[in-house]
Every structure is written in C-alpha cells, then in structure tokens.
C-alpha cells in the first residue's frame, strides 16, 4: 500500500497528493440538510451535486437529497439564470420543500453568476423561501462552505428582533447527528432553552419504518428557529473554524453576543460547554452530568497505562482535529503530527496555544494547516507514531505502516454506526477513549509473543 511514497520529504509542493480536505459546496449541502423541509440545490454542473450526495450518503449511510442546475456548455457561456429559475420551479412542483438553499460551485463562481440577483427576480410561491450562499470551490475548504451556508440562511431568514427572548442559540459546528443529540441533551440537563442550528438529528439518521419522506417533519432546524435567531439572548458557537464567521455575523447583524468554544470533545472542552451553559442558566450542574464526567475521568485513569506518552497523528478538519488533540493530551498522549488540509494558518496558532496551555513543547510536534496526507505519510515514514486518528483516508497510511487507526471526523466511509452516536460530551469521550485504548490493546495482543500474552490487562 502506498509503496511509491518516498521517505524524503518534499516541502512546499504545488501538487496536492492525497488531500485532507474537500471543496466548499459539499459543506453548504451538508449544512442545508440540517434544516427542516429544505432542499439543498447545487448551482453548477451535475457532477458536483452527484459527488456531494454520494460522499454524504457514504458517510452517513443515509439518503442525501439535493438537486442541481445541470449546467451545460451553453449555460456556462451565457450564465445560469434560466437553469436556476427552471430548477426552482421544478423543485417546488415535484419535491415541494419549504426552502431551497442554493449554493454556488467553482463553475458558476468563475463565470460570475449573480445568484442573489437571480433569486430576486424569481417568482417564488407564497410561504416558500429561496436563499443562497456563495461557495467557490477554489477557496477555503468544505468547512468554509458550511459556514457560508449558515450565514446564507441567516441573511435571508433571520428577522430583526425588537425584544430578546430567553432562548439561547447553539451552533454545533460540523458534527454528526449523534453529536447534535448529545449537545441538546446536555443543554436540556442544564436547563437552557435553545435554538439549535443546523440540526441533523433525525435527518441523516432516519429511523427504519418502511416509509420514506424526502423531508420528514419535526426534525432539522425549523424555519421559525432560524428566523428567531436574532432574538436569542446569547449564542454558544462550537468549532472556532466552522462557527466563527456565522457567530460573528449574528452578533454584528442582530446583536447576539457569543461565546466561541471548541467542539466539546474530551473532559476540559466539554467542561467549557457545560460552563458556558451554566453561565446562562445560573444553575448548578446536576449530578447526572457530574457523574458522567466522573466516569470519563475514571476511565482515563484506569486506562492511562496504555495511553501515556503514546504518540499520535491526528488529521482532518480543523475543529475536530483541535478537539481530538485536546482529548489525546488529556490521555497523556503526545500528538506528534497535527494536520489539516483546510488552508487556515489560525489552526497552527490555536493548536500551538493548546500545547502551551498543557505545558507541552509544540516545537517537538508538526502542526500544519493547508497540507495533505501524502505529507503526513512522509513524516510518519521518517518518524512513526503509535496511533492514527482521523478520516477513512488515513487507513492507507495505517496499512502501509502497520499503525492502528481510530476513525473520526469526515468522511468515515468504511465503518457503520459512528454517526448516530456521540463523539462530543462526556459520553462521546467515554466512547472514544474506549476506541483509542481498544485499538492500542489490540495491537499489543496481536504482536505479543505467547509468553507475554496477558489475559488480564
């Protein structure tokens, strides 16, 4: 596997080999799937829409419904106005969503299609909404596309509030449906009433009933909640990359102050979420949560024998990589390589600061944004690690170098059941500590000689 990858590292390549990111539009599509009764629409060639639906379906093992403007050569020369208006008519007639969330592609951006203008000229049926976000694939990564679409929803839908309500807005960032459920559960335990956006719980994890609806009712962020975001008294935004720009937008446009915290994975980052909720509710943390936290810490202590000073390579999207770095540090591990493909230098700063907070020397690790898995593999070929944590694409490196891998983030294409369970919160922490320790122990077992093979560990 990957036998052709040379050990000698080539720095500052122009060619990206084995990417660790994908393009903006898929983030926009994912975001829009988390809104009730909403059809994501890709304004570009058919292939974009087809590829995005495919990767989302493969990650969630769920239908990912979306439509395309189906550009041809003609549309690429003369603009996609008529493709969009035909598409909007057809989508409302055939699929009948309440909202169509249009995102652009590198094609429609390169030809300069003014989608905002096109939408203003559309005849939109009463009580229906068509909105858009600009998501040029040659900028940022899928994470930026996710943020841009969130802002797109708010720009079109969020209403100016005369009076603030008691509700708190929660932006979960780019997480799985199981995480949405867990984040809401914790907020409820903390006695906080919330508007949760976007919300994939129940959408990208539809229960098997024998009946299929394109837009199931009662799941996803309702339009009313997006409209009401401006009236939220406070916002908790999770994921300093995915949620920062949407949070800043809501603050600037609607004066909703926010606390921006990392995606709550592991003990101290979940503590941050709980503390942020506590600050709002002014209620003490109930035993049920404190016990969960205690069980996670207990598990970490019990199993530290196998995690202490183990080196780990963590790769993927900036928010989840940051948070897993924090979890690994809590486990006494050494995050040797911390890597994202997303081109944000801020990532390096934040991860370096995290190392320093924990009194660790960041200079002994490689922390890099805007890079690829080929680079990670070359690093590992020079100095290996005990564990890989990241998306399915790292399994090639894992196989090539004989390193155990724990899958997390996006996309996980080769395992089942991960997305319906939590990665966040104390509960998610317990699940992932188990996964990490199991994979390290499995390796010890697989490699142990008969005389060293322990039944009790």
């Amino acid at each position, binding site marked *: 596997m*990957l036998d*052709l990858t*040379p050990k000698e590292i*080539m720095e500052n*390549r*122009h*060619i*990206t*080999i*084995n*990417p660790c*990111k*994908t*393009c903006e539009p898929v983030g926009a599509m994912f975001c829009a799937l988390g809104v009730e009764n909403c059809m994501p*629409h890709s304004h570009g*060639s*058919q*292939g*974009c829409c*087809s*590829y*995005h*639906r*495919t990767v989302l*379906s*493969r990650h969630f093992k769920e*239908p990912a*419904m979306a*439509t*395309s*403007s*189906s550009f*041809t*050569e*003609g*549309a*690429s020369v003369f603009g996609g106005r008529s*493709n*969009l208006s*035909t*598409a*909007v008519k*057809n989508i409302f*007639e*055939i*699929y009948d969503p309440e909202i169509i969330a249009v995102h652009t592609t*590198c*094609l429609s951006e*390169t*030809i300069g299609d003014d989608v905002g203008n096109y939408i203003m000229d559309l005849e939109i049926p009463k009580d229906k909404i068509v909105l858009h976000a600009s998501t040029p*694939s*040659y*900028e940022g*990564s899928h994470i930026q596309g996710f943020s841009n679409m969130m802002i797109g929803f708010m720009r079109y839908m969020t209403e100016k509030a005369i009076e603030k309500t008691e509700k708190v807005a929660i932006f979960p960032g780019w997480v799985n449906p199981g995480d949405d459920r867990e984040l809401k559960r914790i907020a409820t335990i903390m006695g906080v009433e919330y508007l949760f956006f976007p919300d994939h719980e129940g959408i990208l994890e539809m229960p098997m*009933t*024998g*009946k*299929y609806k394109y837009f199931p009712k009662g799941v996803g962020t309702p339009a009313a909640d997006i409209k009401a975001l401006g009236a939220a008294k406070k916002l908790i935004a999770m994921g300093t990359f995915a949620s920062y720009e949407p949070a800043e937008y809501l603050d600037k446009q609607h004066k909703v102050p926010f606390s921006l915290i990392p995606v709550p994975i592991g003990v101290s980052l979940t503590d941050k979420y709980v503390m942020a909720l506590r600050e709002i509710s002014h209620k003490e943390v109930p035993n049920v949560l404190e016990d969960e936290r205690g069980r996670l810490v207990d598990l970490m202590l019990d199993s530290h024998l196998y995690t202490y000073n183990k080196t780990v390579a963590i790769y993927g999207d900036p928010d989840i990589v940051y948070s897993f770095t924090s979890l690994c540090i809590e486990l006494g591990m050494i995050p040797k390589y911390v890597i994202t493909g997303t081109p944000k230098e801020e990532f390096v700063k934040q991860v370096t600061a995290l190392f320093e907070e924990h009194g660790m020397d960041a200079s002994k690790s490689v922390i890099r944004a805007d890079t690829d898995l080929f680079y990670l593999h070359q690093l590992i070929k020079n100095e290996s690690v005990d564990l890989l944590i990241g998306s399915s694409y790292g399994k*090639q490196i894992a196989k090539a170098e004989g390193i155990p891998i724990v899958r997390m983030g996006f996309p996980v*294409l080769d395992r089942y059941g991960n997305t319906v369970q939590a990665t966040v919160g104390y509960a998610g922490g317990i699940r992932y500590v188990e996964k990490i320790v199991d994979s390290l122990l499995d390796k010890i077992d697989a490699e142990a000689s008969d005389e060293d093979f322990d039944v009790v560990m």
Partner: protein
Amino acid sequence: MNEREILLDKYSSRVFKNRKSHISQLEYGEEADSIAANTRAIPGIATARGCCYAGCKGVVVGPMKDAVTITHGPIGCAFYSWGTRRNKAKAQDGESNFVPYSFCTDMRPTDIVFGGEKKLEDGIDEVMKLFNPKCIFICSTCPIGLIGDDVQAVARRVEKKYGIKAVGFSCEGYKGVSQSSGHHIANNGLMKEIIGTGDKKPRKKYSLNILGEYNIGGDGWEEERILKKIGYEVVSVFTGDGSYETMKNAHLADLNLVMCHRSINYVAEMMKTKYGIDWIKVNFIGIGSTCKTLRMIAEYFKDPELIARTEEVISEELQAISDDMDYYKSMLKGKTAGIFSGGSRSHHYQSLLRDLGVETIIAGYEFAHRDDYEGRAIISQIKMDADSKNIEELTVSPDEILYKERYSKEEIEELKAKGVEIDTYDGMIPDMKKGYMVIDDYNAFETDELIKSMKPDIFFSGIKDKYSIQKQGVVSRQLHSYDYSGPYSGFNGAVIFARDVTMSIYTKAWMLTIPPWKTAALLGGRIGGEN
C-alpha cells in the same frame, strides 16, 4: 392508466413534455418501442447523472494504474474520485500502481484569476521528481476551460521535457449532458495518443482485448481467469487494472471484446476502422451470457480445437457452481427486480437475474444513448444536438501498415449467421418483455413512484438511491460498487452475486421493521363497571 401514465400524470405539463419521451413501457406493437436519450437533464429534477469529468477521469482514465492522473482544478473533484469506484488494480512486477493516490493542482483564487498552467507544470515537475512515471494524464475540471488553460499544450511540453507520454483531457464537467461525453473524450485521447504506439506482439495464437471492463470488485480478473484457462492471451483491458504499457500494444490483438458498450464503443469502432480488428459485444454477467460469450469468441476463430477446449472449460466451470446456483435459484425464483445503472449493466444483469429466476421489470440508464436501448441500427437516425456537437468526433482511417482484416465481408456474414455478434449490439430493449418499464435519465422522484406502482422485490441502483429505496422497505443493492463485494462476472461471480442478493432479501433485520406494539392490541384495559 398503465404505470407509465400514472407516473407521468404527476408531472406538470412542462416536465411531462420532456419526460414522456424518456419513459417507455414496452408495447411490442406495430412500431418498434423507442426512447429519447442523451439529452439534457431537467434542472432541479434530482437526476442521478454525474458530469463529463466523472466519465473521463472517474471511469475511463483513472483506472490506468501505471499513469499518474492529475486533476487540474480546485480540490473537490480529485477528492471525490479518489478510491471511490472500486476499480481494483494490482501492480505488475516492477511496475507502479498509482490507483491508491489522488493528484490535484488544488487551484486557488489567484490561479483562477491568473491561470493555472504554471502551477500545473510546477506540479508535474514535482511528480516527475517524486515518482518518475512513464505516463501522465491531465484531466480538466469546470473552471479550466473557462479560464483558458491549455492542458494539451502543457502535455506536449511535458512530453518534450521528460520524454514520457502525457495526455491532456479537456473533460470539464459542463461538457455534454452526462458522464457520456467524458467517455467519448477519453476514448479519443487514448486512441490518438496511446493505442498503436507499442510493438510488443502477443505470444499466443489467439489474443484479445477486453474493452469497457473496469474491474469493479475484480470482475476483470474473473474474466481473465476464464479466458486464460481456455488459452487466450489478454493483451490489454480498458481500463480496469489496465495500464499504459499494455494499452500501447492493444492494436496487435486479434479481437476486441466489448463489455460496457456505452463507455468504450468509440475505441472499438475506431480500432475496427484503423486496424481492421473486429469487435464482439460480450456479456460476462450471468451464466448463460458467459457461456454464450465464450462460444462466440471460439466460433469467431473457427478453430475446432479451441471450440472443444471452450466446451471443456464451460462444463468444468458449470459443474463447480451448479449446486450453489440451484440453491440460490430456489431462494430467488419468482422475485422481480428494478435496475438503474450506468453503462451496460442494466442490460447485463438482467441475464444473471434471469439465471436465478428473477425478472427485471424496470430498467433504466443514467447516461445511455438510444443505441444502448434500441441497438446500433438506430445510430443513423440519431440527430446530433448542440450538446453532442461540442464533443469531438475523431475521424480515423486505415493504417497503411497495420490495417489487417481477418475475414472478408462474406465470411463475417457467415459468422454472424452462426450467431457470432460481430461489430454490432442490439441493445437492452429486445431482451425485455411487454409491460416492462424502460427509463432514461431516471431521477429520485421517478424511482420512488415506480417502486410504489410496480413493487419490485429488489432494486439495484447506486449509493444516491440505495438508502431512500431501503427506507421504503425495498431491498436495494448497489450495482456501481457491488456493495463492496464482487466479483460478479463469470462463473464464480454469478455465485457471489446470487449469495449477496439472497443475503439482502432474507436478512433478519427486515422482519424487525415493525415494532410489536404496532400490531398487538393494548392489553390490561378494564371494562367499565368492574370494581
């Protein structure tokens, strides 16, 4: 109203007008059943189609294992087409296998504004330094054609600089109306630049190319196993587990076998014109079809020894699988199926399903042309529209040195009369029965409506449909990726397919869909007046 009318009735007049000619419920009346195909998808209809790049890079060019295929454009397209199609490849001794890698120029705003040729060339310099490949393919994505990067010119400069083979493909996503345009562009590039550039003659008496076999789940390997057992030499496979090294010599083979008609018929036709090599439309999917295919090939060479050997292999292979096939047939007989797929699979799999006693009552293609449905006789009647005209029609002429006809026209007619289907394909429709539904460029809505009205027991499609079909309580298996199984071709593949279909239909979880409290009366209530 029949099922077609019920379906179309739900459309507005505007959509109805378009879709009615793409949906055909077979009548076998006085006029031949026909269908419209290879026209633009309706915006917003949730078509299953992909794009030109997907057809060129994703299908035809990408599987070439000893070539570095660089996606020139922003990152997405390279990411989505990386390791996602299950076109298996194994490195030959001493050769490279780049299939597990993804290469991309990852264009940024400045590249879009100022052009990306420089970045592409710098990237190729790095690829040469890192891997030193013999062959580089450059596949363009949407913005490239718009900003005017000339990938063919870059390819020529690379060839000059490094003395390797480099081919640029202008397969921007918006070209044509589906993946089909990408197949055509890829076929043209391979024909112009690679086929015929080698001189390594086959060693065995009878040699073949397998065209349109992408080795999904290892299909090509099962086909090669059988062909080699009979005694053929397989010169090259287009393009599953294929290579630049072997494709160079493809023109020296005796006969071309065409599996996926849609994606590779251009090469088959051009090789016939340029080198005089005949082609046979084969089908290795299904026991009956595999036997027929093997017999046609043997018959083509008119060698009694080869014919006898073929029969020997067939009977050996059949014996090995007959118990398994009988068992699975007993499990599946009488079921009905729907198939929506790409190239030729919606046709091919009907044979295998029929072997198992399963009738295919709905069949459709994403990106077929009319000849895939109605047979090649229809080609002369197909009108070129603006979208097709934009794709180059490569004209080739007989090669002065290498053109060689094995048989005269009369001999070919004789062979055809014996049932050897040379240089022809009759399409999918003739193999289907009255009342069955044929759909071109199917979409999500139509899929769901047909499931309701025609109630197939199992639906074969792709990942975009799989889970929505399954949520409706209908078994669904992917015919693009084989649900991570395979091979499904040849004799051994038929058993694996039969096992997989049986597994999916009979899996226990289907029985758990409805919770007991939905069907049982609530007990424990009291009748008024007691106590």
